[in-house]
């Protein structure tokens, strides 16, 4: 007979407020097999755990039930507690009487009654628990970073620094991401390229890091420590080994009218291009949608001009299979599209730009060579209006985002300051709801913009922008001044909200990582585990997890790298022992389970069995590889005879819980 200990936690007042913990402990003491049933203010505390350990040794308990918070919080804690006291960690069951009982029911009577029932269910389950020992599975000592922005670069560098091999998969022809498009960075105004390109060169020169540029992740199989990833290396029609990056072809290509996405379409590039001067890998890429040679077979100028003979029109997509132990998602962000905000006339006038476009206009490598000119008539703008929170902080209606995009206040203050410094004759207005500058030296930076560069910060909003004979008539409210302002602006800059990169959604499905309603990756725990995804072995770095500025992204990239290093440092991983197990005597060998297994963990073998009157029967039976099985249980339902069962969540255990609940 099992000797079970029941420990009811008060959780301070979280449980004790709406559940009579004394009554629960006394009621559960009467359950069969329970030898001790106590309660304590904080079961998960040091004292609480010691109380459990003493009880295990004193009463020689064979199983414990802790009625406390969600198993997702402290199941691991209480399993460790039991293990230290010599009890098999899988003889521990948690009754969730906080999140699913005391916090959701106001009335103390019903709360107590329900807590007792949940306690009974946990006791019924622990009766049928069998001691399990976790198996081992090997760890491939290589990491994959998806996304080559500053987040991916920093993570890869840190992992490589620890001596592990890293592959970066970047879908654009070069790494660098959004930061390579930025001119100056707040709050220190040092130039983005100056601090980014050396890191990009480090990545290129680091022999532990391999860059798959112009490539995307096609498929991900396997699980933590044993990911099997298929990478699609898109055809760039240029042989990377031969191309020296001289750029001759990019000058001679006759197809000139291709919108340059690096400059957000503000200028054009050739069909064969190198995105920007410091691109890594510095290799040309042919844009198949515009190259007339690829489309109609009539041209070939670039191959004639190329001294290195690197052009290869026959190149096709390559599928590369790789093994990894850990995967870091660093897919970054994009500004949202402005076509739903017609009150700002973004689509009507070229002089209404987003902040990123403004960044390119200010950038020396930008379309206007660094001098700020109006995109419409290339004249110098005298009055510029910045509009904050465009699409951010909306009530998650179909056109906007419900969250604050966090970085706009700072980069708008930067734009305003740089504009005023370079062109003192321009009037700069910034319409804001709140200026949010929470970082180190952030507010001082904003105050400098207001006090030293007298940028007009107006608490209010721009109502509408109407382009009229070359000027932008801006109608806005000045709430503190209690007046409606009418400004004839030369340019309007919209601080657009940012959203995760569109490639994140299919990637999340591949990685079985979950996403929140705004398509940001959900972290394992918002406060305690911000850089890990709930799926083991998948880590999050940078803005794919939420709006972030560069300092935070680099910090998070380092954190993700440290988690990956922690994982890869292990030779093998203790894997989840709650896996499926087949009872050979009852197995029909009908391979129903094999067909539903998502991990291919089930194999078959012919085994000899003793048949009637001393004959030997050969029967085909299933066997589960515990290292590959993840314990989902699909096979246990596909198996009609119940031969296949899941350890830790067996058929009889779940039925015992059902009985205890419905009694």
């Amino acid at each position: 007979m099992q000797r079970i200990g029941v420990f009811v936690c008060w959780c301070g007042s979280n449980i004790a407020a709406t559940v009579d913990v004394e009554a629960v402990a006394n009621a559960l003491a009467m359950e069969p097999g329970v030898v001790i049933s106590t309660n304590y203010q904080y079961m998960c505390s040091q004292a609480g755990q010691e109380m459990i350990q003493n009880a295990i040794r004193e009463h020689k308990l064979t199983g414990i039930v802790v009625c406390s918070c969600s198993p997702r919080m402290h199941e691991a804690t209480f399993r460790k507690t039991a293990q230290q006291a010599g009890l098999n960690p899988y003889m521990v069951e948690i009754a969730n009487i906080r999140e699913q009982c005391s916090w959701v029911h106001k009335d103390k009577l019903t709360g107590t009654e329900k807590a007792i029932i949940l306690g009974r269910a946990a006791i019924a389950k622990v009766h049928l628990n069998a001691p399990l020992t976790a198996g081992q599975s090997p760890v491939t000592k290589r990491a994959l970073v998806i996304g080559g922005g500053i987040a991916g670069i920093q993570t890869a560098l840190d992992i490589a620094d620890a001596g592990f091999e890293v592959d970066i998969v970047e879908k654009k022809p070069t790494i660098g991401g959004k930061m390579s498009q930025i001119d100056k960075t707040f709050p220190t105004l040092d130039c983005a390229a100056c601090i980014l390109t050396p890191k990009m060169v480090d990545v290129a020169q680091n022999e532990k890091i391999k860059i798959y540029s112009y490539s995307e992740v096609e498929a991900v199989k396997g699980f933590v420590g044993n990911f099997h990833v298929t990478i699609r290396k898109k055809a760039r029609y240029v042989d990377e080994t031969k191309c020296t990056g001289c750029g001759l072809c990019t000058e001679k290509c006759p197809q000139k009218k291709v919108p340059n996405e690096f400059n957000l379409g503000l200028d054009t590039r050739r069909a064969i291009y190198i995105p920007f001067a410091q691109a890594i890998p510095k290799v040309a890429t042919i844009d198949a949608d515009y190259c007339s040679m690829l489309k109609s077979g009539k041209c070939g100028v670039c191959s004639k001009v190329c001294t290195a003979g690197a052009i290869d029109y026959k190149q096709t997509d390559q599928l590369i299979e790789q093994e990894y132990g850990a995967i870091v998602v660093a897919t970054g962000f994009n500004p949202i599209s402005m076509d739903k905000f017609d009150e700002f006339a973004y689509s009507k006038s070229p002089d209404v730009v987003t902040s990123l476009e403004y960044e390119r206009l200010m950038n020396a490598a930008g379309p206007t060579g660094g001098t700020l000119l109006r995109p419409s008539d290339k004249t110098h703008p005298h009055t510029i209006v910045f509009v904050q929170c465009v699409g951010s902080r909306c009530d998650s209606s179909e056109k906007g985002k419900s969250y604050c995009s966090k970085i706009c206040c700072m980069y708008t203050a930067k734009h305003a300051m740089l504009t005023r410094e370079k062109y003192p004759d321009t009037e700069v207005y910034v319409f804001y709801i709140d200026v949010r500058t929470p970082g180190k030296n952030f507010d001082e930076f904003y105050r400098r913009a207001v006090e030293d560069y007298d940028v007009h910060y107006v608490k209010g909003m721009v109502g509408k922008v109407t382009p009229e004979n070359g000027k932008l008539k801006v109608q806005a409210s000045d709430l503190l001044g209690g007046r409606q302002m009418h400004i004839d602006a030369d340019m309007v800059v919209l601080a657009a909200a940012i959203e995760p990169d569109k490639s994140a959604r299919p990637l999340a499905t591949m990685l079985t990582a979950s996403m929140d309603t705004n398509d940001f990756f959900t972290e394992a725990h918002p406060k305690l585990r911000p850089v890990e995804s709930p799926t083991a072995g998948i880590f999050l770095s940078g803005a794919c997890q939420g709006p972030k500025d560069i300092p935070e992204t680099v910090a998070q990239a380092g954190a993700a790298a440290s988690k990956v290093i922690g994982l890869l440092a292990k030779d093998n991983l203790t894997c989840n022992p709650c896996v499926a197990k087949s009872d050979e005597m009852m197995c029909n060998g009908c391979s129903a389970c094999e067909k539903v297994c998502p991990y291919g963990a089930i194999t078959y073998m012919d085994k000899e069995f003793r048949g009637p009157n001393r004959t030997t029967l050969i029967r085909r039976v299933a066997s589960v590889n515990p290292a590959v099985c993840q314990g989902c249980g699909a096979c246990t339902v596909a198996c009609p005879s119940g031969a296949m069962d899941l350890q830790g969540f067996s058929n009889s255990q779940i039925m015992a819980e059902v009985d205890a609940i419905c009694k």
Partner: protein
Amino acid sequence: MREMIKAKAIELLENGTVNRVLGWKAGEFFYDLTPGIFTSREEIEETFEYSVFSAANLSKYLIAESRKEGKIAVFLKPCDSYSFQQLLKEHRIWRDRVYVVGIACDGMCSMDVIRDKGITGVTAVEEDGENLKLTTLYGDKTIAKADALLERCVHCKSRKVVVFDEMIGENGEEIPDSHRFDMVEKLEAMTPEERFAFWRGELSRCIRCNACRNVCPACSCEKCVFDNDKSGIAQKAAASDFEENNFHIIRAFHVASRCTDCGECSRVCPQNIPLHLLNRKFIRDINELYGEYQAGSDMDTKPPLMNFTTDDCEPSVVYERGGKV
């Protein structure tokens, strides 16, 4: 047809391709043929029977037989061949130990149906062309064969033997509109109360003799979940009306997407419960929701319940689509 089959059986035995033959022999009554294994020429000549009553599906016996030494010959009607192929697909029968002789079939008869037509005390049945000559205690009678057919043969879904080493008679084709779902549709049109009453009426007669389970080729576990007391739902006799329902619901679910609709369960049920309707309901739902699928029609397509598409319908479709509320 009977002589040809007997001759074939003897021939296969004689020329050594097989060391035993699985066929039918007379059971308690002439119209109640039971499967039998014949190992010698004499046995075949005396006891081997084939008539309009050899409805029994022989494929399930091959699970055990195909593991024994030597090859065995078997005669499979079109509907039996689907069960045979389904068991092959589930690796339950060793194909190389079985020599399959497909036999064309145009429908098997049932004495219950003949009795329902008011003819009793039948002592012998003779097939001649389209109708049957019955010698009964109260004089001879003739009846059209079509009126004496089993329910499943009236709605026969296919006259095609899907797997055979040799064929006796012309191999037929699937019959697309076999109206086998008419009764299911009739039931679905009822209100839940009527349906509940109908099924309580039917299932309450169940005496848990397990004939349906023992004859069903898809229901062939080494140890059935209802016999295994560790399974939690073990039960011998049905102690309450819930357990009567429970047995048949779980059995229907276990064979769902594997049942070839061979109709044996209803044929052998001593209480004449229309168990095939449960399986046909699953087949109809699968065909409607996940695309036409006939279990045992080929060796490789995955059964619908072990397969999925990302844009399957949601379970709430049952609320909108279900019968009258």
